[in-house]
């Protein structure tokens, strides 16, 4: 199986390639990609150099252009597709129907992948994207169980890519505007879930408050792990009850499900984390490359070592194994 790894910087791209990634995904330093964080991402020259570095070492590069263009601002997204092709990208990852249409018409030689932001969660929808826009691969939303993924693969020729590690989005991806209520910005339009400009941490007497847009959304007592400041993993009080309303602050780790995902017909395993460091990328890629190689060779899966890298320092298999509170 193919491992698809994140790179927020050229250093992370090199780290991923060195650690054994088959494929790396990254984005331009603007609002065209859904990890539009300060100090992150690639300018045009860095993208060209990064792709050349990866190709020279047998790895492919996908360019994520997976936000939804602003009315009147489409030229920025159109330029991103053209520049990705010119830089030698192996594929672009798109979510917007207009962009998919444009890429199919103006860049027919550029392979098109469907972003998780498109929230394509059944075979009919995926086949429509393939028939209409020539989509070759779909990144499945993180709301499907393994049997549901197998059912999709039985009814489509489109390759499927699934998230196996990293931040866990629990919403219908591409349709979540939760953070816009607290910040005025959303991941779909601005490429940020909890924009750093609206995030504030305050530690007093060992208690860490995380605030988003001025609202306290989590409070960690001394000794408790700190979470990302996302509303969907916030801890809220109502009446006499306090708890995580949508999801606990945990990371996805489906490493142990790799054999089942392979049986379900999955082509590629995706690691989340373009906002993370080159150290994270190297550790996670090495771990998953070892796991995939072990499965391919019929060996038992190696023991995972990734808990410390996880949000909440705890892992979950998310929707792949569905349970209820």
């Amino acid at each position, binding site marked *: 199986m193919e491992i698809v790894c994140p790179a927020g910087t*050229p250093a992370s791209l090199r780290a991923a390639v*060195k650690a054994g990634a088959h494929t790396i995904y990254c984005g331009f330093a603007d609002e065209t990609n859904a990890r539009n964080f300060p100090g992150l991402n690639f300018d045009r020259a860095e993208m060209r150099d990064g792709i050349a570095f990866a190709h020279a070492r*047998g790895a492919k590069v996908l360019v994520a252009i997976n936000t939804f263009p602003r009315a009147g601002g489409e030229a920025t997204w159109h330029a991103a597709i053209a520049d990705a092709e010119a830089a030698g990208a192996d594929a672009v990852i798109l979510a917007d129907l207009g962009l998919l249409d444009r890429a199919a018409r103006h860049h027919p030689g550029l392979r098109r992948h469907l972003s998780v932001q498109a929230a394509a969660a059944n075979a009919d929808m995926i086949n429509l994207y393939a028939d209409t826009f020539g989509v070759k691969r779909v990144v499945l939303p993180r709301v499907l169980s393994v049997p549901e993924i197998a059912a999709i693969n039985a009814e489509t020729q489109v390759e499927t890519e699934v998230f196996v590690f990293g931040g866990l989005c629990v919403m219908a991806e591409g349709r979540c505007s939760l953070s816009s209520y607290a910040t005025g910005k959303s991941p779909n339009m601005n490429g940020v879930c909890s924009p750093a400009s609206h995030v504030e941490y305050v530690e007093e007497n060992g208690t860490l408050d995380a605030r988003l847009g001025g609202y306290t959304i989590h409070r960690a007592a001394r000794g408790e*792990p700190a979470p990302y400041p996302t509303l969907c993993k916030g801890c809220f009080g109502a009446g006499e009850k306090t708890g995580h309303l949508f999801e606990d602050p945990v990371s996805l780790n489906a490493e142990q499900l790799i054999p089942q995902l392979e049986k379900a017909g999955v082509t590629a395993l995706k690691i989340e984390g373009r906002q993370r460091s*080159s150290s994270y990328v*190297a550790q996670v890629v090495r771990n998953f490359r070892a796991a995939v190689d072990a499965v391919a060779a019929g060996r038992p899966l190696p023991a995972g070592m990734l808990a*410390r890298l996880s949000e909440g320092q705890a892992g979950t298999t998310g929707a792949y194994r569905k349970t209820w509170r």
Partner: protein
Amino acid sequence: MTPPTSTIATFPAPLTLPLRVLPLAPLSLSMTALTRSIARRHPGLFRRLGPYADRRFILDPTDLPVVIALEPRAGAPRLSVLRGRGEGDARIAGPLAALIGLVHGAYDGDALFFSRDLVIEGDTEAALALRNAVDDAELDLAREVETLSGPLARPLRRLIDLAERRTGAPLSRPDNGLYDDAGEMSQRTEMPQW
């Protein structure tokens, strides 16, 4: 919820005494010289900081009695070692080994944040930009010190290596073991066929 257990080395308290009593100006001057040398050798670091290059960052090694005020100033950086909390736009606090380990890519910033080994206060956007810019620069502070040290470079390097072994702190960029002696990748990957 399981309390995080820190594996980060802390600076030996008796060795912090000079920082409590000696004048800090010479240390500030030499650290500014080091940072300016880094700026010359790694201009991309300051380019990546973008609009945040005019911020003042307080780096707070929690196991030392001083803080470091970093002003990138568009590639002409200034570094001041100060007693007390210091004032700045963003504060990044953690054990000295954690801060140096971040520079050297030995630790992941988010993981240190999850485990509460690292605390960020103030302008989160600026702090993130600094972290990402430093991570991309792939700095090796030991090598940067060597570059500035002329004939003292080799004994200084031996001293740094010794301190690294004794303290367990990542005082230089770790060898990732992925390259052979010729600098070529020891294991090439097979390009996916699609």
